[in-house]
Each structure stands twice: as structure tokens, then as C-alpha cells.
């Protein structure tokens, strides 16, 4: 027995070392981004490169907000994130509707929802642009937000979770005279907190990162998101890597912070929703 324990310990040590090495390799881009973001413009082009900034500065970050419009891009991004939470509520409602009611056409409609998952974004991009152009919504915030509100995958996950909520719970509330929407908002939402946590994070990430659609629809830079702003920066300040790294850090760090608070819910949520 002792030799087997020993063998296990050696094995675990090897796995741990491999994990740490791999993790370090995976993190190099992030480390390099953060270190370079604090270097002055001249230092990022030094060869051989310095690892740690010799004259650390926050000037790059100041530059983003004073000389560039990152404040506006930030506000637009926040608006998109908030709007996508309204979409999250719609998806949850739909998931609940599909899971807990039987009604005419349910299975056909649900199949329709699933079918939309298989349509590549590039197929719908052009017609959605034509549609929005027809109703005059190109270059508006509404046009940026609307197409992303309903997400089939999200409806699917909500439905998977809602099916596990006991019917008796809902029946009991109905007998007490609660209305259907009251039941959903006061009973189901609290019960479904774990799945809301997962989807909330995913929705936040998707909204915060939204790039290609705002780029297509917005022609005014007052409607640009942080991603679009950052891609402009890459074009205009091609050789100022310090400034680019500061912009990237500003986009990436909030996500990392939020994610590290909530990451355990993501694994649990995926385990729960039965994708295995």
C-alpha cells in the first residue's frame, strides 16, 4: 500500500508541475500585456525588450481617456451590457415557458429556437443589416442592441434548468392564488439563481466584448464600443504598443476580476444543465 501511495504522490506532483508550467505558458500574453501597459512609448520598442518596465508610468491609461474617446466607448459598452440583461430576462421567460407549460405548437416552436443555433452569423449578418437599414435603425443604439437580445443557446440552458423545478411548487403557488407572472418573478427567479449566475456572467462577457455587430451598424464614433475603439487604436497607433496594451488591459482586466469572483458557478452551471 505504501508504495502505491508513493506512486500516487509522485504522479500528482508531476501533474501539478505540468499544470503550472502550462498555466504559465497560457498566461504569457496577459503578463506581457500588463507589464507593457506601464512602459513609456520608447521602451516598448526596445530590443532586447525589458521584462519589467524601467520607468513605470500610467500615462498610457490617461492618454486613452484624455486624448482618445475611451470614456464614450466605455459608456456605450455599459449600455449594451445593461440591454443584454433585458435580453437575458426574455430568454429566461422563454426557457420557463417551454419547460413548464404544455401548449399548442410548443415542440415545433422549440425546434425553431434550436434551429437558429445552427445558422452561421455570416449568413444573417447581411439580411439583418438590410432589414435594419429598411426601418432606419442603422447607426443607432437600438440597431446595435436588438439583434443580440434573444439567444437560442441561453433559452436552451434555461429550459434545461427549469424542467428540474418541481411542478408541485408552482401548483401550490397557483392554489394560493398567485398570478403566472407573480410566480415567475417571485418564485422561479429566486429558485433559478444558479443558472442566472452562469448566464449572467456569460451575458456580461458577451456584451462587454461585442465587436463585429457594432462595427457594422455604427458609423458614428459616438456609438463605438470599447472593442471597436481598441481596433481603431491598433490602426492609428500601430507602433505605440504601450498605448495598445493599456487599451487591451482596460478591456481585459474587468472581465478577469468578475470572472474570478464567479468562476465556480460556471463549472457548476455547466454540470447542472446537463451538457455532459
Amino acid at each position, binding site marked *: 500500500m505504501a508504495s502505491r501511495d508513493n506512486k500516487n504522490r509522485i504522479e500528482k506532483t508531476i501533474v501539478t508541475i505540468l499544470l503550472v508550467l502550462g498555466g504559465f505558458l497560457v498566461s504569457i500574453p496577459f503578463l506581457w*500585456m500588463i507589464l507593457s501597459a506601464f512602459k513609456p512609448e520608447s521602451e516598448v520598442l526596445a530590443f532586447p525588450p525589458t521584462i519589467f518596465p524601467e520607468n513605470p508610468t500610467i500615462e498610457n491609461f490617461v492618454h486613452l481617456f484624455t486624448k482618445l474617446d475611451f470614456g464614450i466607448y466605455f459608456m456605450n459598452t455599459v449600455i449594451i451590457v445593461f440591454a443584454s440583461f433585458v435580453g437575458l430576462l426574455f430568454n429566461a421567460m422563454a426557457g*420557463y415557458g417551454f419547460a413548464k407549460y404544455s401548449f399548442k405548437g410548443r415542440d415545433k416552436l422549440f425546434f425553431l429556437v434550436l434551429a437558429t443555433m445552427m445558422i452561421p*452569423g455570416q449568413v444573417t449578418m447581411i439580411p439583418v*443589416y438590410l*432589414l435594419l437599414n429598411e426601418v432606419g435603425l442603422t447607426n443607432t443604439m437600438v440597431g446595435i442592441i436588438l439583434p443580440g437580445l434573444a439567444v437560442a443557446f441561453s433559452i436552451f440552458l434555461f429550459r434545461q434548468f427549469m424542467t428540474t423545478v418541481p411542478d408541485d411548487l408552482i401548483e401550490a403557488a397557483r392554489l394560493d392564488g398567485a398570478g403566472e407572472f407573480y410566480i*415567475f418573478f417571485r418564485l422561479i427567479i429566486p429558485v433559478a439563481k444558479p443558472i442566472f449566475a452562469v448566464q449572467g456572467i456569460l451575458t456580461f462577457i458577451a456584451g462587454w466584448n461585442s465587436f463585429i455587430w457594432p462595427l457594422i451598424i455604427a458609423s458614428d464614433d459616438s456609438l463605438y464600443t470599447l472593442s471597436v475603439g481598441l481596433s481603431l487604436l491598433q490602426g492609428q497607433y500601430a507602433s505605440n504598443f504601450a498605448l495598445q496594451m493599456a487599451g487591451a488591459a482596460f478591456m481585459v482586466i474587468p472581465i478577469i476580476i468578475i470572472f474570478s469572483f464567479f*468562476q465556480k458557478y*460556471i463549472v457548476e452551471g455547466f454540470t447542472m444543465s446537463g451538457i455532459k
Partner: protein
Amino acid sequence: MNRLSGKPINKFPYLFIAPAVILLVIFFIIPIIIAFGVSFTDMDLKGLANFSNVSFVGLENYTDLFSDEKFLKSIYNTAFYVVIGVPLVIISSLSVALMLNYGSNWLFRTFRGVYYMPSITNIVAIAVIWGYLYNTDYGLLNYILSLISIDKIPWLQEPTIAKISLIILAVWKGIGINMIIFLAALQGIPKSYYEAAEMDGANRIQILFNVTLPLLRYATFFVTVTTLIGWMQFFEEPFVMTDGGPLNGTLSVALFIYKEGFQFSEFGYAAAASFVLFIMIIIVTLVQFKFSKSEADY
């Protein structure tokens, strides 16, 4: 309450699903019908301004596509990405998940986060950071290589190397989400299976191949299908890193569609290309489902 049908409710389910379903119909179902229609026309900017400028051209867009060298090249590149990228993503995310499943202390939890991080990172930020790492003259990668006396590599300047560079980046980004799915599946395997195998005297390797991997079949199938579909639509990496260059060496089908549609405003032509992509994805997905069914037979 509707006494006639005996059911207590009937309008509520529709009220619950209406907002999401209506949005999906407007932004997915109707567009795909429009795309199909537009793909038989010569719709461009003039057509966008006034529909009388649009005329029906039958299958011309489709026949043009298959004699368009750029389009054929984009198909070749996409196949290159898929053939190399998909197995790489699956093998690396599975290996990371297997290693992370070894323990559950803070170290393993932290590294779970580390490996997941790239997949939640904004693609533009990634392009900016990797563009700097890949820079031929000032990049960190070439500097590290110079330390071991390897000549500068033109990471993004030579068509084939540029494709590989994009694959490295996309694999780095793709590990996270798939690893989480594998990890969720691994945690769902009952401990008793392992104990039984150990009692039978199976060693680690035997357990891996005879117990763990077969039980991960569904997760592997899910990951393979979604990864494959994702890589067939490979778009953002070449779009932000190379814009399809050098010499269209990194141009993917999805990027071809975007460029024809939104840079050259050839909506009809782009819509036809998007349908070709759609059909390719459907075929590949169906083949996989077929394949997985025959595999489950034994």
C-alpha cells in the same frame, strides 16, 4: 381561467415565450429566407438605395463563386484551419481537463481560472496583444527564439506560417470553454467506476482508455460538433490580425463573406457565399451525427 377547455391557462405560455421567439424569428428565421432570396440577385449598394436596381440573376453568383480564385483559396484555408485546429483544440482541452480533475484544492481551482481566461478575453484585445508578441522586430516570441539562436520568424508575413500563427492563437483561446465542458463531464463520472477498475487491477493508462474516455463520449461528441462548426466559421482572428493577408493566405470563407458584403457591398454575391458555407456546415454536422450513431452500435 378557461372553463371550456378545462385548462387553467392558455395565453400565458405564449406571453412568456413571445419576446424571445419573436426576436429570434425577426433576426434569424426571416434573415435566412432573405439571404436565400438575395443570393439569386445582383444586389449591391445601388440596390440598397433603390430596389428597382436589383435584378434576378439565377445561379450566376453560385457559378461565379466556384471560378473565383479568392473564394477557392478561402475554402482551402478554412479546411487547413479545421484539419489542424480542431484536433489540437480537442486534445489540448481534454488533457488540461484531465489534469485539472486530479485535485480540487486552491491550486487546481486557480489554474482552472488561468486556463479559462483566454476564452473570455475580448478578441480585439487578443489581436492587439498577440500582434505585439508576433511582431517580427520587437516581438517577445522572436526575442526568446533569438536567445537560442533561432532566426526571426515572419509570424504573420508568410502565408502558411501566418495560418499556423492564427491557429496557435485560436487554440490558446479555444481551450477554456471546451475544458469546462470536459471537466463537468469528468466530475459527473461516479467514483465507483474507478474503484471497480482499480480492484480489477487496471493501471492508470488502462483506466484512462477503458473507463474515462468511453464515458466522455457524449462530451467529446458535443465538443467536436461545436468546435468544428466554430472553426468552419473562423472569422475574427484573421479579421483582426491579418485582414486575410498576406496574399489572401489567411482569408477564411467567413471573412470572404464579410469582405464581399461589407467592404465591397456585393450583397448578392456575399449571400450566395454564405449559403455555400451554411450548406458545408450542415453537411459536416450531418456526417458527424451519422458517424457517431454507427459508432454507438457496437
